[in-house]
Each structure stands twice: as structure tokens, then as C-alpha cells.
């Protein structure tokens, strides 16, 4: 069977950029991606492009992938927008990998872009809330903070997970993000700050929640057989999996696990022939602090219910045995919805090649890394395992 490799990866800065729209943001990531290809790449050799995007405030829902790629000078592409809410980028990677594996195309772009800050606060909440179950969850008066708070409350009730353990995720990720020059929030926060944030959806406070972010990212994915033409150090997509679940959490078997994560991870592990113990570092979907603890459990890094303890024991810190979200995660690096999944791959591409800009954030000697991208509250999940 064919194999797939990543030979280039780029990312715009993440943050709030009033002077840039989706075209400019995507172009910034695109240029970064082109220049990251060690031996250079002719843009005309790119045959396909899959662009993750939720909606960017509704300004160009139709034909947006053609819009952002033609701005980069690419008008010959088999291109489409990929939408699975916050997992759009993760699914753009899957779509690109499948395109290459099918033999239809050899050189494919997987990217993502989102512009969140052009619209009013109320419209942002509107857009952030359209990816859950609109009929029941939304009309019960919740946004995603509320839904993850429901999971957090139950997790605390069933497993004794502590409020402090949630805040440890925020503190850790901000510490990492402070070393990431492309992160939205490049500053550390204290435990006291993390515990005392204004309540958003009790038990979650402002520091348990990721922000709204503008940003873009892009990858060059190709047939592994031709990867060495572009670089001596490609990163291989060893396995991937996408899995869905009931959209509304009240329909799910469990309110303390994302079955979508378990199923997507199982598929990725199976395809790669690897297991959780082989994962040396991971970028997981910490849209809320509880989501990172759920990810530890559902990806198999620790037992169900032990996510808080696993955090507290320090395994996932930069100096731990399995650093998670060395980039700062969604929490500190930022969460430009459609770009988040491909942005994780950008980070992992550099981690596995040892090309992280600031050594403080470089996970030493990692060869295998996992990226985990959740759509909404778990209605869709994309997992990929990357290997040097």
C-alpha cells in the first residue's frame, strides 16, 4: 500500500489581525509552507487542495477554497472546502491523505483558515454555537463552554477530578505558548489566575476556555515515494482515523468520554500498527481544559477517570515523559477553527524534525507524535499519527 508524507508546513501567526482577511491569512501560511520545503517546490505541481473552514463569519461560505487558493496564484486545482466544525483542519489532512493514497493525485495541499474577529462578540458566539446540536443543546441556552462544563461537572462527580487539575492544563499550556512566537497568547499565567477567572459556565471559568482567533496553516502532503525529492527529513502520516458520534451529548452513551476520539484513535493506531505507549508527544484538542483531560483518557494515555491525576503527575509537561500541547495548544496558541487541525500538524512536523524555533519548546528526540482534532463537542473527531 502507498504511504503518505508531509514535506512542507506553514502557519500564519495566530491572533487578532484587523488588517488581514482570510485571503491574506491563508497566503501568509502558504508562503511559509512553500519556503519550508527544503529542496523547493514548484507551486504548479500541487494538484489538489483541501481547505478546512467553518464559515469565517459567513462572508464566503460558497467556493471559499477556490478564493483563498487563487489568491496564492493557484487556479488549476481540484479543490474543496472541508467543514467538520473545529475538526475541519484535521479532516482536510485525512482528505488529502486519501487523495494521495487513492492514486488520483501525488502532491496535495491540506490547509485551513479562519477569521473570527471581524464580527461582533454576539456573532462570534453565534458562529461558535452552530456546530453543536442546534435544536436541543443550543436552545437549552448553551454554547460549547456550557457543553464542556456539563462533561466537567460529571467528570468531577464520577471520578473526583479536581478544579485545580483543570487549571493545571491552562497553566501548562500557557507556559508552552509563551515560547511560541506564532501563538496568540505568548504569556504565562499563574495557578491563582487560572483558578480565579471570571465564571463563564460553572464549573468552567475564562481561563478554562480557549479564545477566538484568526489564523491559517497549510501542509504539502505527497506520495511517500517522492518525498525525498523535496526533503531529506519528511514526516510520514503513519495512520489516521476519523470518527463521528451523536451530535448532542445527551444522546451519547457517556457524558465523560468522547467516543469519537476513542474510535478515531483506534483507527489511527490500527493503521499505523502503533499503540498509545508509542506516542511520545501529542497535540490534543484543548478547546476547554476538561477536553485535554478527556483526550488523555480517550486516546489511551491513561485510564478513564485518571486524566486529572495524569495531569497532576506531570507526564504531559514539556519535561514529562509525554509532552502534550508543546505548542501552547488551543488555549494559548489559539483556535482559528478551520486551521486548528492543520496547525497541529505544522507543530508536529517541526517537533519531529527538531526544527522548533525556540529550543525551550522542542520535545527532545521525539519520533512519533499524535494530533487530535475535535469537531464541536465530539460530533466529529480526526486523529493522525505522524512519524519521522
Amino acid at each position, binding site marked *: 500500500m502507498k504511504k503518505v508524507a508531509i514535506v512542507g508546513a506553514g502557519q500564519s501567526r495566530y491572533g487578532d489581525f484587523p488588517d488581514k482577511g482570510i485571503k491574506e491569512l491563508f497566503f501568509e501560511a502558504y508562503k511559509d509552507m512553500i519556503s519550508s520545503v527544503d529542496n523547493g517546490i514548484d507551486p504548479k505541481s500541487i494538484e489538489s487542495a483541501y481547505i478546512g473552514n467553518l464559515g469565517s463569519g459567513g462572508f464566503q461560505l460558497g467556493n471559499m477554497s477556490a478564493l483563498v487558493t487563487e489568491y496564492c496564484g493557484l487556479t488549476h486545482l481540484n479543490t474543496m472546502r472541508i467543514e467538520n466544525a473545529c475538526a475541519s483542519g484535521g479532516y482536510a489532512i485525512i482528505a488529502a491523505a486519501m487523495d494521495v493514497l487513492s492514486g488520483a493525485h501525488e502532491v496535495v495541499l491540506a490547509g485551513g483558515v479562519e477569521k473570527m474577529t471581524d464580527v461582533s462578540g*454576539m456573532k462570534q*458566539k453565534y458562529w461558535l*454555537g452552530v456546530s453543536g446540536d442546534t435544536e*436541543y443543546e443550543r436552545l*437549552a*441556552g448553551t*454554547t460549547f463552554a456550557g457543553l464542556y462544563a456539563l462533561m466537567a461537572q460529571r467528570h468531577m462527580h464520577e471520578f473526583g477530578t479536581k478544579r485545580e487539575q483543570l487549571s493545571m492544563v491552562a497553566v501548562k499550556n500557557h507556559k508552552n505558548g509563551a515560547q511560541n512566537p506564532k501563538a496568540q497568547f505568548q504569556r504565562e499565567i499563574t495557578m491563582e489566575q487560572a483558578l480565579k477567572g471570571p465564571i*463563564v459556565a460553572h464549573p468552567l471559568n475564562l481561563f478554562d*476556555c480557549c479564545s477566538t482567533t484568526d489564523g491559517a496553516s497549510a501542509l504539502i502532503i505527497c506520495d511517500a515515494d517522492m518525498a525525498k525529492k523535496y526533503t531529506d527529513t519528511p514526516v510520514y502520516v503513519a495512520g489516521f482515523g476519523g470518527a463521528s458520534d451523536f451530535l448532542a451529548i445527551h444522546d451519547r452513551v457517556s457524558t465523560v468520554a468522547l467516543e469519537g476520539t476513542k474510535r478515531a484513535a483506534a483507527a489511527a493506531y490500527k493503521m499505523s500498527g502503533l499503540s498509545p505507549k508509542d506516542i511520545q508527544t501529542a497535540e490534543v484538542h484543548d478547546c476547554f481544559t476538561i477536553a485535554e483531560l478527556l483526550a488523555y483518557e480517550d486516546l489511551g494515555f491513561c485510564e478513564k477517570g485518571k486524566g486529572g491525576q495524569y495531569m497532576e503527575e506531570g507526564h504531559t509537561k514539556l519535561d514529562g515523559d509525554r509532552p502534550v500541547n508543546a505548542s501552547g495548544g488551543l488555549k494559548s496558541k489559539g483556535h482559528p477553527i478551520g486551521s486548528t487541525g492543520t496547525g497541529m500538524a505544522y507543530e508536529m512536523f517541526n517537533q519531529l524534525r527538531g526544527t522548533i524555533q525556540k529550543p525551550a519548546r522542542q520535545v527532545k528526540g521525539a519520533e512519533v507524535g499524535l494530533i487530535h482534532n475535535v469537531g464541536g463537542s465530539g460530533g466529529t473527531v480526526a486523529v493522525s499519527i505522524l512519524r519521522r
Partner: protein
Amino acid sequence: MAHVSVPMYWRTIPQRYKLIGYKCKKCGAVNFPPKGVCKQCQSSSEFEETHLSGRGKVHTFVLISAGGAPPEFAEQEKAGGQYPVAIVELEEGPKVIGQIADIDPKEVKIGMPVRTELRKIYTEEEVIRYGFKFVPA
């Protein structure tokens, strides 16, 4: 606004006003709200309508503050302060999400008994959307 069109909302009136559940003829699980294929056995599309009691217990809950309220509920939060939303396990089996009304938010506990009653959910296009909320039983 979460745009839920009038016809879309109207189609859910049997659930929102009357708590009509759908009992799977194969495995007996009550599906509420309805599914095309039973969410329990995932192998049957034949259901029998059943009128749920609206009684249940709080499985988990959240207290929504200003930052967590969607635009169509912002006014409610501003007028009344934080409001509780719960996933309730109904006595017939299914879990369903809804607000808990008529209670001091500090009093909400996992396991507490609740029952449904008709309330105003929100207003869109000047049309009041009524539906069930939970109240302490």
C-alpha cells in the same frame, strides 16, 4: 441568533410541548428526541409513540454566566443572572438537555428530582418559542 426557522421549531412541538417519546419496537429503548434508526440497537426504524412523564433526575449540570450564554439567551442572563442547564435522565430512560427554572442556581445538585413544564424558551422573529424546561419536582 441561532437561526431556527419557524417550521423547523414547529416540527419539534410533539417533543417540546408534549414529551412524545419513541419506543423502539425491537429493543424497547425510548428515543427522545426521535431518531430515524434507534440510537440504542441501531438496527430498527420501527417505533411506538409514548407519552413521557417528564420526570427524571439531574445527571449533570452547568450554570451559564454572561460569557457562556448564546446571543438569544443573553437577555435572559442579564435580567435574571446565571441560569442552570442540565442533562436530565428521564425515568423512561433517555437523557435530555434542558434549563432548570424556578430554582436558586446554587441549589442545583446532581441526582435531584425534576419535572418538565411549559416555559418560554426564547423569541426569534418576534415569535415566542415555547417548550419544556425542568423545575424541581
